[in-house]
């Protein structure tokens, strides 16, 4: 492998991290929003959310991506590979995040919510001060798990021409007819990315424990 090849894999790493981050940052709040709609039993919209989540959980990411990429231009929505990739990632991850958030919401003790009501907190205050801090803590392991899966599913985005770590490695293998060295380099790059994410989770958890001990 030449220096240029290693640079190409690092270029791919930038794409992998950027797309994963965008997917996580957009997918996380959308997932929470969807979970809240279901939790609050909103008529009609709640049903649509159930349908959205079950359809997206049943659709493989590659299939969804190819459908968006080839079908949207036919109904007059031009879409480039990057936007199609981000849209597919966000749609996919928001459905899974919704279920993680929802499981935390379902287990949320109702008496706390009623207690907050009785001391006169408004809905926004109740959510921000009572519900959110507690469901974040319960959901965190599940959410981080989903995020690390998201990072590792990014190679499928290559099918529309997005060059991530794995695609960059495959290209080098195709050019040198030596597929093993670039693939080893690729594997070595995924590990620190996921490790950084898990470290972030540990740090947040430690901070929460410390905050509780102080309280």
């Amino acid at each position: 492998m030449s220096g240029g090849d290693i640079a190409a894999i690092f270029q791919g790493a930038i794409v992998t991290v950027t797309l994963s981050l965008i997917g996580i940052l957009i997918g996380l709040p959308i997932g929470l929003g969807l979970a809240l709609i279901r939790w609050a039993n909103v008529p009609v919209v709640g049903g649509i959310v159930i349908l959205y989540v079950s359809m997206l959980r049943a659709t493989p990411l590659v299939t969804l991506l190819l459908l968006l990429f080839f079908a949207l231009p036919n109904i007059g929505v031009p879409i480039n590979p990057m936007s199609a990739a981000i849209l597919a990632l966000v749609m996919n991850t928001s459905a899974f995040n919704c279920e993680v958030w929802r499981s935390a919401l379902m287990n949320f003790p109702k008496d706390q919510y009623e207690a907050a009501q009785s001391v006169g907190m408004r809905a926004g205050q109740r959510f921000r001060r009572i519900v959110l801090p507690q469901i974040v803590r319960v959901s965190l392991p599940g959410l981080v798990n989903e995020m690390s899966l998201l990072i590792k599913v990014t190679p499928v985005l290559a099918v529309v021409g997005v060059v991530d770590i794995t695609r960059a490695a495959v290209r080098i293998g195709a050019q040198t007819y030596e597929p093993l060295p670039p693939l080893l380099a690729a594997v070595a790059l995924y590990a620190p990315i996921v490790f950084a994410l898990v470290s972030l989770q540990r740090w947040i958890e430690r901070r929460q424990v410390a905050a509780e001990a102080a309280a």
Partner: protein
Amino acid sequence: MIAYSSARSNSLLRRLIFGLLAALFAMPMLIGNAKAASLDEIKKRGLIVATEDDFRPFEFVKDGKPTGFDNELIEDLRKYAPFEIKQEILPWTGILAGVSTGKYDVAITAAIITKERKKSLDFTSPIADATHYYVKRKDDKSISSIKDLNGKTVGVQAGSALLARLPELNTMLEKEGGKLGKIVEYTSYPEAYQDLALGRVDYVVNTIINLKTLVAEKPVFEVGQAVSGKSFPAWAVAKDNKELLAFLNEFIAKEKASGRFAELQKKWFGEAFPDLPVAFEPEF
């Protein structure tokens, strides 16, 4: 309360599911309406060209930059065309589908002309001679000619013309009392070569040009004999996009006349093909 709300959402859910199913079935009709861009439209917005990223020596990426036979021709095309050329680089899987749905105007890659593909695509003048050959491990003494391929495992690219024309090899083998062995399909050729090296397949079928480049780099492999009749790769445009096809054929004719075509063929394929047909009607 839960029972009540689920009963209510059930009928709603059913209507929604029906609606979505209907939408799903309507989708193919929309896709059927996909129309290729005319030359006038292309002149306004630029020509969208799709190329492959791991098909050496036609197109591949070296140090992050596209190179190979077709990519050098695209450089010439940029100078020749009176409009902008926008290039998209992607794996083989999405290329022909993208051209027939109108996502890309032309696939500048070595797409072998076949009867099946001619139903949804039109092809330019052939860019090379790509008769199919087999390649084997040099140290595999059990294969020395076509008849030894009897019952042996073969690797080819999924959805490729090489796969579609394996029955031709089967006919050759049947004449000798043998038959085609197990077929393993790969998304792209580098994986097939890797499996050949590892002994998971006994031989791989690809065009002579690809295989010559392979053995020049990797002397552990050895090219065998031809396993198909005449076969030509060309660039593909959407069916009946006559204006664009004529424009590209004119470009190819000009490159041939100036000697540039032969020069690039020599550089990338190791030989020039001076008597390529201008148009080719496939038998298969």
